[in-house]
């Protein structure tokens, strides 16, 4: 009995010795190291290790993980390429979902990106995720056809409420008309800026233009034509500056609001991980 035990122990040695002889770069060890780097969020190094393995032995799983690395590093273009290649592989459903996510993050038109096979899922959870992200993309695009009913069908009630409010803001943005702002300031200097909630600058504009108008009038009345002309020029300078500034103020107001809304929506989706199950984005203990 003792001899059998000893011989069985002895038989293990060649494999030990062999593995050590080929150093720390055997495919198994490289994979283990790459997974470790991935879990340490050292994604570039992890992707390089996966790529090294890929050159020896190509596999869908390695491509998927390389795609994940790029996704995590916010290099969405590269991630998208990897997930696109895997659409019909054994990891097709996960890849299609992550492809949709990268397209969304790249602000690409999701309708144009998807094909007929895109929304065919065997896994119910992934199918739900896919549909939810599609709806989120429609909301962001400000599509009026985002049906409140379909939001209720696909989301929890609290999320559906939040998304409805976002849908409303995207489809009916609270913007200011630059032309109206310019027109208001043409009628009353600074009024356009007040319209864009730029109260301080609006009032300053009114005071400055008003003051120079008074000096223009006063000097003209007092018989100082040269000074009157100088003040007339300054009045015109500030008056037209106010008209131009009001137009720009409204334009900038709209851009800032749009950016704010986008950031708010993005941070909401990010808090929900874009409705994607976290397990498919690499599991780490």
């Amino acid at each position, binding site marked *: 009995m003792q001899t059998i035990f000893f011989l069985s122990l002895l038989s293990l040695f060649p494999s030990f010795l062999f593995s050590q002889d080929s150093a720390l770069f055997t495919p198994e060890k490289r994979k283990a190291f790459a997974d470790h780097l991935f879990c340490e969020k050292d994604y570039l190094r992890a992707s390089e290790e996966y790529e090294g393995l890929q050159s020896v032995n190509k596999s869908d799983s390695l491509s998927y993980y390389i795609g994940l690395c790029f996704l995590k590093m916010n290099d969405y273009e590269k991630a998208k390429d990897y997930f696109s290649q895997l659409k019909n592989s054994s990891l097709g459903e996960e890849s299609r979902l992550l492809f949709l996510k990268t397209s969304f993050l790249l602000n690409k038109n999701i309708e144009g990106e998807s094909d007929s096979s895109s929304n065919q899922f065997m896994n119910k959870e992934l199918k739900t995720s896919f549909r939810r992200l599609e709806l989120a993309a429609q909301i962001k695009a400000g599509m009026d056809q985002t049906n409140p009913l379909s939001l209720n069908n696909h989301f929890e009630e609290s999320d559906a409420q939040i998304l409805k409010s976002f849908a409303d803001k995207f489809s009916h943005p609270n913007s200011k008309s630059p032309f109206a702002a310019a027109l208001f300031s043409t009628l009353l200097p600074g009024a356009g800026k007040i319209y864009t909630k730029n109260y*301080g600058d609006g009032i300053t504009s009114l005071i400055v233009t008003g003051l120079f108008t008074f000096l223009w009038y006063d000097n003209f009345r007092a018989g100082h034509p040269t000074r009157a002309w100088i003040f007339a020029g300054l009045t015109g300078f500030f008056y037209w500056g106010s008209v131009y*500034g009001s137009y720009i103020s409204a334009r*900038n107001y709209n851009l800032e609001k749009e950016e704010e809304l986008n950031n708010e929506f993005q941070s909401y989706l990010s808090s929900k991980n874009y409705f994607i199950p976290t397990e498919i984005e690499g599991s780490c203990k």
Partner: protein
Amino acid sequence: MKIVWLILVFSFSLFAQTDWQRWQRTEINYSETVNDSKRSYSLHADDPFEFLLKTAAVTYWFFISDVDGDNCPFDPSCSSFFLESVKASNIIEGTLMFADRFTRDFNVLNRSDYRVTRKGRLADPPEKYLLTTVRSKVK
């Protein structure tokens, strides 16, 4: 010691992003430099009109602006803003942008809408006020 380990573990992910792009050796400088925009006193111009404008601006800077102290809270200063605006657009748009900036300069109560630079000035680049502005420059 346990606390040190905990801090190490939790802070690890903060550093991970450093290596999301390959990097090379960096020359470390003991001296400190503050990269704030500086006035260019060069009279080099692409056309006669720009030359005239620059001459006027440089004369103003040399005899008045550089001697009368730090009166403009913005970066770039009003005169530089004017030069840059005209260069980025045309004389009419540049002048209108300058008039608008001048008015905003009078408004001493509203300074919170601007980002503060390292030298404590209010960042107010002309790109933000061009008719054909780049979206990212607005904020």
